[in-house]
């Protein structure tokens, strides 16, 4: 099994959050539709629309012989060339072949597995990974934003379902990279919705976000308080959404007509099923017009019967979540609806029945997530007082003997989080250790999702049980995992960083970067340069602050040398030679080293003097319990 190992210099992340000046947008990369929004000068989020004023861009991609088309044109193409068109690719992000075959996409397209076991989709002679297809959608969104704003867009906050596991998150980030977008932050969809809702309405207290989209369902409970958006609990199902209801309608129609439709006619029939479903939000009855299945009457009652099993699943998850958090439904102050599927009157009724209160619908459920993402993009680039505190949606663990999962980080733990666990060898002279990292709630490995297998080598040979291998699991604010390990007994500790595999082999990544029209390699170089510039400016600023305070400690003979070194850094800052800049900053740090040392020495001398006085005072205070103190 191939894993994508990324080993980099400490402090030099591959995709740094670079300079502030560029424009950052918020993207809701949805299963059915995607949106892009930006916070304008007025400070309010604005959805960027196409030339026809459409806010939603269908997450549909047509792969023609020499052209890739995204959005409503791709939907049109699907009518005549369904095999060339892919929709709902989000459901396959970070997935293996077997589980993908269970989804509606698996029933419509030819799938295969990559060498790493991840799913590949066959479209018009191309074999594509879900990451590439998502990257095409992101490129189209970026293009729309650039057209609407008449300037370049290279950074984004992208939303993901709260319940996305590590593989799907990493895949989303990778897709953005291929599309030439730097991900400032992955934000959970319900959190983005809460941000939008809370900031707009000034809501405070416990709120539930019920998010039923095209392919995913999330239920989250957040505590909203004075600019702090704190996720308390989250649960969901990444394979539950409006798509399932469409599929159920289609299957019902085929049963009615006693005629199974061939795979290539399903795509278009599904669109009709969806249209009928949407029509039934306002009508009591509609005609389902699918070629060969004939016009069929579909009533709202019939639709609700078909949708019931899916809503039962969603409401069960709600019940379990509240039980887990010991939260009675009455304590929840409001329920915010997110996702196009919550437009169905039946969904609203089920939500109201369960939470015993009418859901909040005054912000468009289709737009609220993208708008929240735009607010967060604005906050990250321009600064703000709002704080998002999220949790990890699924437990992280490690396989132990006999296929049993040892949980390391429990679900609903606030992120960022890091936990260390010590492991040892079980055979004399054992020099390698295999670690298998899994995500999920079940006790056995077979029922969880495998994130990564990695091997820790170079363990000094010892008797069984003597080695101490400390493995650290760190989950960052994006919900992404990094595992590092070191052997502690010998003192010569080695450390590795592992980023779990998420659907692309290393060769594939390299090939894609090479092919990418957006010159991702060049992007990477310019990011490293930007990072070096931020660092150099930080060093100059730090020195300026120190000099303002302690100018007297500078020796006259130093001043010229430091000024020259500073001049060199500034000269290199204006250029684009990263190596020269790094050399100049190192030289500057050397030139200011003695000055920094003198500042330390003086402070320590002063502290020692002060401390002696403090000690005497403390002694006197203890001697006199009345607490009277010398001035």
């Amino acid at each position, binding site marked *: 099994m191939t894993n994508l190992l990324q080993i980099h210099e400490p402090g030099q992340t591959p995709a*740094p959050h670079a300079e502030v000046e560029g424009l950052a947008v918020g993207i809701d990369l949805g299963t059915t539709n995607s949106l892009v929004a930006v916070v304008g000068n007025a400070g309010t989020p604005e959805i960027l629309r196409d030339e026809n004023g459409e806010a939603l861009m269908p997450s549909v991609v047509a792969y023609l012989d020499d052209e890739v088309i995204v959005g409503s044109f791709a939907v049109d193409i699907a009518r005549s060339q369904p095999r060339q068109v892919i929709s709902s690719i989000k459901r396959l992000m970070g997935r293996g072949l077997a589980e993908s075959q269970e989804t509606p996409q698996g029933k419509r397209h030819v799938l295969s597995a990559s060498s790493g076991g991840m799913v590949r989709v066959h479209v018009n002679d191309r074999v594509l990974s879900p990451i590439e297809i998502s990257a095409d959608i992101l490129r189209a969104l970026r293009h729309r934003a650039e057209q609407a704003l008449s300037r370049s867009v290279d950074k984004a906050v992208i939303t993901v379902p709260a319940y996305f596991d590590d593989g799907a998150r990493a895949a989303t980030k990778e897709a953005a990279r291929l599309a030439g977008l730097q991900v400032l932050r992955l934000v959970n969809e319900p959190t983005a919705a809460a941000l939008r809702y809370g900031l707009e309405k000034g809501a405070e207290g416990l709120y539930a976000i019920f998010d039923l989209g095209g392919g995913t369902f999330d239920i989250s409970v957040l505590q909203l308080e004075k600019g702090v958006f704190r996720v308390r609990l989250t649960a969901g199902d990444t394979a539950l959404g409006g798509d399932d209801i469409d599929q159920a309608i289609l299957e019902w129609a085929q049963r009615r007509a006693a005629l199974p439709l061939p795979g290539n006619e399903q795509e278009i029939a599904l669109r009709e099923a969806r249209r009928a479903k949407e029509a039934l939000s306002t009508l009591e009855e509609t005609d389902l017009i699918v070629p060969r299945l004939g016009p069929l009457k579909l009533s709202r009652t019939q639709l609700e019967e078909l949708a019931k099993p899916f809503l039962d699943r969603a409401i069960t998850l709600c019940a379990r979540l509240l039980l887990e958090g010991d939260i009675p439904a009455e304590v929840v102050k409001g329920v915010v609806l997110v996702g196009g599927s919550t437009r169905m009157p039946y969904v609203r009724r089920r939500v109201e029945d369960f939470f015993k209160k009418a859901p909040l619908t005054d912000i468009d459920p289709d737009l609220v997530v993208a708008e929240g993402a735009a607010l967060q993009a604005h906050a990250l680039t321009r600064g703000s007082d709002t704080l998002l505190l999220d949790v990890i949606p699924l437990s992280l663990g490690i396989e132990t003997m006999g296929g049993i999962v040892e949980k390391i980080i429990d679900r609903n733990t606030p992120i960022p989080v*890091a936990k260390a666990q010590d492991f040892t060898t079980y055979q004399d002279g054992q020099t390698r250790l295999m670690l298998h990292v899994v995500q999920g709630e079940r006790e056995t490995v077979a029922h969880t999702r495998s994130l990564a297998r990695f091997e820790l080598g170079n363990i000094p040979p010892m008797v069984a049980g003597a080695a101490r291998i400390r493995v650290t699991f760190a989950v960052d604010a994006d919900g992404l995992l990094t595992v590092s390990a070191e052997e502690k007994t010998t003192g010569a500790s080695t450390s590795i960083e592992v980023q779990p595999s998420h659907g692309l082999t290393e060769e594939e990544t390299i090939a894609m970067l090479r092919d990418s029209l957006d010159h991702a390699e060049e992007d990477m170089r310019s990011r490293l340069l930007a990072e070096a510039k931020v660092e150099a400016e930080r060093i100059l600023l*730090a020195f300026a602050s*120190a000099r303002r305070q302690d100018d007297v400690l500078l020796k006259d003979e130093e001043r010229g040398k430091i000024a020259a070194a500073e001049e060199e850094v500034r000269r290199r800052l204006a250029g684009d030679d990263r190596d020269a800049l790094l050399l100049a900053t190192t030289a500057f740090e050397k030139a200011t080293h003695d000055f920094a040392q003198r500042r330390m020495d003086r402070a320590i001398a002063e502290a020692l003097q002060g401390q002696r006085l403090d000690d005497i005072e403390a002694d006197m205070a203890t001697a006199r319990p009345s607490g009277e103190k010398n001035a």
Partner: protein
Amino acid sequence: MHATLQACWSCRGPVENVALFCHTCGAIQPPAAVDHFARFGLPVRFDIDGDELERRYLGLQQRVHPDRFAAKSARERLIAEQQAVTLNQAYQTLEDPLGRAAYLLTLKGHGATLAGEQTVKDPALLAEMLAAREALAECANEPAVEQLAAREGARAVVLVAQLTDAFAAEDYKRAETLAVQLKYVRKFLEEARVRLAGFHYA
């Protein structure tokens, strides 16, 4: 307790080890090696004001969370993340009475049984929990499980009150016994919750 001085990683001048930010250059500082209580400026005791703890936790997160440093250098983002991780860990430990008791016992050198390093030598407790589990297994419906859970839930509340007294009296032996009991009651409540969730599936 005296704060010690160390060199700021950014301007390399003196900064107190407990400072969040350098007073000279303003750079965020790595988390200090202090206990969880000191991190929030709280006294080392079991009986703490939960609301005050939460207020201080959120106040500190608001200053050090990595999102505040999105436009800063990689090093600053890394340090901000370390700070946020440390705060989350400290808050999670102290917020939960059982976590707080276990941590406090470790600080006082009494946490061996609780940490699972020593076996529980309390036959009465073990027998009692075994009986409770059997009762849970025999519950046929939701109200029966709820009734059992309510009984044990009330017991957990009493145990926390008793823990408060034991810690106040600096009776760590008794505190450890009570904490072990609380741990078992928690485990039982978790099992009851799983059973209740099972009823919701229908």
